[in-house]
């Protein structure tokens, strides 16, 4: 039987929709991944097999073919684990669900826990653009994913949780962003008032900060150049929502 699950690749900072087709048929037992997978995607076979077994499912006795479409786009990274595992369960009729409006991403550990996926904002914003209504993302990435409006974000902790949700046994609540606890690194930095002297340098840095100008400080070792530069974040204004979203996207893709 054939199953389809939608997932996502990240090219640069933009998401590209990847369709995962899983077919369980006759043949020598094994999982075969096609569609230009890199080494990490090839290895997902082993993670998927163990994760399914350790989550109480069974790996079908037959030839399992996984196709990642579009076939000409290189697929990198382990974020296809969860959609592949789900595809296998759907194709072997261990789960019954319509997944045509849902994005699924996440790396699996051998015991079925869903791990962090880099670039989650790019993926979820693509899903929202394409009109998908649900996004199943690693639980740890849900706050990041919820920055995107327009679709329901489901935080998935384990493969078993996802199966129980889809079978209607134990639904996962869509993620609601709570009051975000901002961790401020500014308060740990040196304040400008603590730096003695160098008033003209402070003035120059204030102007640089005000207009986002480039600045170069030149002076003997130990005169405080590095300390002054490191205090820069304390005089920079907060980012606007739009700016913050741009920056978060870059950090998300880098997995920071």
């Amino acid at each position, binding site marked *: 039987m054939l199953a389809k699950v939608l997932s996502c690749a990240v*090219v*640069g*900072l933009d998401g590209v929709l990847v369709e995962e087709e899983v077919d369980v048929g006759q043949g020598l037992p094994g999982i075969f991944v096609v569609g230009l997978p890199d080494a990490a995607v090839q290895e997902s076979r082993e993670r998927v097999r163990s994760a399914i077994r350790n989550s109480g499912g069974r790996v079908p006795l037959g030839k399992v073919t996984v196709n990642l479409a579009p076939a000409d786009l*290189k697929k*990198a990274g382990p974020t296809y684990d969860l959609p592949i595992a789900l595809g296998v369960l759907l194709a072997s009729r261990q789960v019954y669900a319509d997944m045509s409006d849902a994005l699924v991403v996440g790396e699996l550990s051998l015991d079925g826990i869903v791990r962090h996926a880099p670039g989650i904002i790019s993926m979820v914003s693509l899903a929202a653009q394409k009109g998908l209504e649900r996004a199943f993302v690693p639980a740890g990435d849900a706050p990041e994913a919820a920055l995107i409006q327009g679709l329901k974000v489901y935080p998935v902790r384990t493969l078993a949780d996802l199966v129980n949700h889809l079978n209607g046994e134990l639904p996962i609540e869509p993620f609601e962003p709570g009051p975000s606890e*901002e961790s*401020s690194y*500014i308060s740990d930095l040196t*304040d*400008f*008032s*603590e*730096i*003695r*002297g*160098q*008033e*003209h*340098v*402070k003035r*120059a*840095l*204030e*102007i*640089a*900060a*005000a*207009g*986002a*100008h*480039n*600045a*170069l*400080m*030149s*002076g*003997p070792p*130990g*005169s*405080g*150049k*590095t300390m*002054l*530069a*490191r205090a*820069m*974040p*304390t*005089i*920079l*204004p907060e*980012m606007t929502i739009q*700016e*913050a979203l*741009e*920056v978060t996207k*870059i*950090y998300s*893709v*880098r997995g920071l």
Partner: protein
Amino acid sequence: MRERPFRSPHHGTSNAGLIGGGSWPRPGEVSLAHRGVLFLDELPEFAANTLEMLRQPFEDRQVTVARVSGTVTFPASFMLIGSMNPCPCGFFSDPVRECRCGASAVHRYQKKISGPLIDRIDIHVEVPRVEYEKLSSSRTGITSSVIRGRVSAARERQAIRLQGASMLTNADMGPRELTEFGKLDTSGEHMMKAAVNQLHLSPRRYHRVLKLARTIADLEGLDDIQAAHVAEALQYRPRQMAG
């Protein structure tokens, strides 16, 4: 996250690490510093070709990485803060300690940062040694939060003014915006004319000075650029220190 990023890559950073790249292109430090600060400590220690790669993001505010599989663009609108010693030993032009470097060594050291790069830096400032009286004084300066308030106000003025051009800060301005928004009053005009003639400012340097004067006027909340603003902006032009 609402706080602006601050990145300080070590001078051993590879080109791909700084600019972005890899066979599966990923953003580099210049993109991680997007909307924030890229701090390059000991600027002359960076490899010359690494520094030259900063030119594209300076001009375009983004980085384009081309691979056989396709071209990828990352945003890179950052402000560069650099630091350097004036010479290899560090004490050139220091009033107390004598510099032990030969003239050619000083020249070679300063040459490590190319002219085009120097030209793209708006503010050049010398950081001299601090005297004991200042170091030991209990007088505290203005706090960061006060400065931050002034900076925010100046940035708001810029954002409103540049809205039509979809820019955020004065540093983003091109010649067209500068002609429109870099209005000098009569005294400012005189000052600028004298500066261009006597200091032989290149057209690019003229634009830099004007941009900087615009920001200084913004910090004071003024619409027209006055002579004092131009004068202060001129102080921050690069100076040939040796040879």
